[in-house]
């Protein structure tokens, strides 16, 4: 009994400490009306993945590190889905100058993640994004649990580590 108690207690401590240092709720995903890549209305509350984690990246067609980030993720996206069931939403902050060229570019690049259009930066402001790239990880309950500014070659390895931790934390 004592052992059981100790085990339960240490598990409790461990998970609490764990969830506080690594996976803690930062804020809930805000509800903002933007558009999907086809130009149809889309509310950001619908960024969901059947209870599994979601990665949200803010990007633009003129942002060099963003394109590098997406190319790198595109190479391993299939593996990520198989391994964790994660889904990625790439939110373009291109304004009306280039927003209509986003879909042909995404298709031309062969990217398979979901793409959304935030032409006037409404979602960007609600998520407190300064400059792209800015990446968020959202848990199955629609809570943002992790965020990261900028992209350096190899950063995507950390994203998938966090996604795995989110899956474990459940």
């Amino acid at each position, binding site marked *: *009994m004592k052992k059981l108690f100790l085990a339960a207690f240490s598990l409790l401590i461990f998970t609490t400490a764990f969830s506080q240092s690594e996976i803690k709720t930062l804020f*809930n995903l805000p509800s903002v009306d933007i558009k999907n890549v086809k*130009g149809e209305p889309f509310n950001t509350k619908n960024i969901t993945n059947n209870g599994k984690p979601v990665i949200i990246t803010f990007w633009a067609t003129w942002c060099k590190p963003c394109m590098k980030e997406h190319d790198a993720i595109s190479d391993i996206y299939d593996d990520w889905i198989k391994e964790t069931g994660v889904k990625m939403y790439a939110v373009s902050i291109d304004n009306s100058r280039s927003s*209509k060229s986003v879909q042909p570019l995404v298709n031309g*690049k062969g990217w398979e993640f979901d793409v959304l259009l935030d032409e*006037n930066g409404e979602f960007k402001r609600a998520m407190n994004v*300064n400059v792209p790239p800015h990446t968020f990880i959202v848990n199955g309950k629609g809570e943002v649990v992790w965020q990261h500014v900028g992209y350096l070659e*190899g*950063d995507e390895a950390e994203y998938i580590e966090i996604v795995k931790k989110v899956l474990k934390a459940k």
Partner: protein
Amino acid sequence: MKKIILINLLLILAIIPVFTFSQDILSGGKVTGNVQIDGQFYSEDSKLGISDSSLNYKKFGMNGFANFIYTNGDFSAGMRAEGFLNPMLGFDPRYEGYGVPYWFAKYKTGSLEMTAGHFYEQFGSGLVLRSWEEWTLGYDNNIYGFNVHFSPIKGVMLKGLVGTQRYFWEPYENSNRGIVRGFDGDFYLNDMFESLAESKTKIDLGGSFVSRYEKVPNLTFSRDSAYIQINELGDTSEWIQRTTYQYDLPYNVGSWAARANIASGGFNFYLEYAQKGNDPNATNNYIYKKGSAVYSTLSYSTKGLGLFLATKWIDNMSYKSKLTESGNPPMLDINYLPAITKEQPYSMATVYPYATKQNGEFGVQAQVAYNIPKNSAVGGKYGTNLTFNYSLAKSIQKDPISADIPVDSSGTEGYKTNFFSIGDLTYYQDFNVMAEKKFNSKVKAKLAYFNQTYNKNVIEDDIFDEEEMVHANIGVLDLTYKFDAKNSLRMELQGLFTKEDKGDWAALMLEYNVSPSWFFSVQDEFNYGNPVSTDQIHYYNFSLGYNEGSNRISLRYGRQREGLLCVGGVCRYVPASTGLTITLTSSF
């Protein structure tokens, strides 16, 4: 002993739900935000002609903001504090100061969303109304007033707003600038009508109406007419007769736009047409002509291939909430006229950038993106990506309204033009191709070529009657080498070749990254071909940065090249400078 442990365990179990419950209540309201502080220490640099007196003894510049948003369920409120003490070089001195130029309160109930305070909004593609902000440009035309979004039935979104716009730190007071009113509707037919719900063709229609009220000032203009008089003795004398007229300025200037988006299969077609009423203002040299604009895009894409075509035609479409406002930085813009050129990410390809000319411009753009598939002969193991882009901006045809009144004369109709007429003067042209290839798990390369034609008179000085062309060829090689999962080296080698303006440039940048936290870079842009030998300057920079989650701090020491910094087709002039820049950004 066992009993005590059991009680302990029960106590803990009892506490857990209480703890989570109280957390739920606390998490009902949440504050989030972000901060950015840029500080620059300027040094004297005789090579760039910078001395303490040319800096006005402002040896330190600081631009900073902090955003806070409080959210609780369907209610949110926020504010942004800004400080420019002193504004960094290249920002208008009228920004000097500290304050809260943006705050709002917003709630949503059912199908109604209401914002009081400051807000950003866009109707359609922005041809008649767009308020937005871009920190790096010092651009902010937020509207201060009320904004309502209402969706009475599925597929219909109505928007209405009334307010005044930001002008540096100057508060709105009775009549010191105009009031903007606007109404917009979006109608997604496939959502509105069940019979269309299953259709593969999606149709959206939309329309906007915007009006500006301004208590107009008393403004006059004069016109000179010369005549020659001959007296009885046969002497001739030349006389100039100056007549002063009062402008007939409208209190209300209206504009409207209609738009349609049709998507079917891989095709997407967008068309927007806008018109603006008689609006004599400082930007159009006070002519009475109406304005109009058309913006259209057509794209087709399927996995591995994307085609994009865009065209626009703009005639006299500068629309501001104060008619006497003009120049740089652009303030009080009610509408947004998208530039039709591609925004380039490489520094040498932005030495000669483009921004829309609001008084008249024709533009066209074409882009092809193609992915040569993986495991094909040309594509290699990882595939190869090709992008081709062409854009062109030209004047529109402007004919005089009569033989004795020159084009653009104040207090007249200004000129005559036919819809979609194209003039002779080229403003800008950019042809570029880029190939991207991943060779193996360690090496990636991008190779790009740009051919740009830049009309310096038009773009930099608004001179339209004489052209000064700069023809530039630019090559870029961007190589990334990955040592392991965390360490990588990136090299950018660029060259710009032109016989005009400042001549040839060569640029080299080396960047060492340690994911996810550190980056170091050295860079030199060398204007070795400058015809003035003392201006053959090395613009060197050393940078280092540290990322930790959503915090980022970076340091940069070196020389800033003079030029136009453009984001989204709006440009800011950045003067040359030397010094240390510290940037701190954080989100929470």
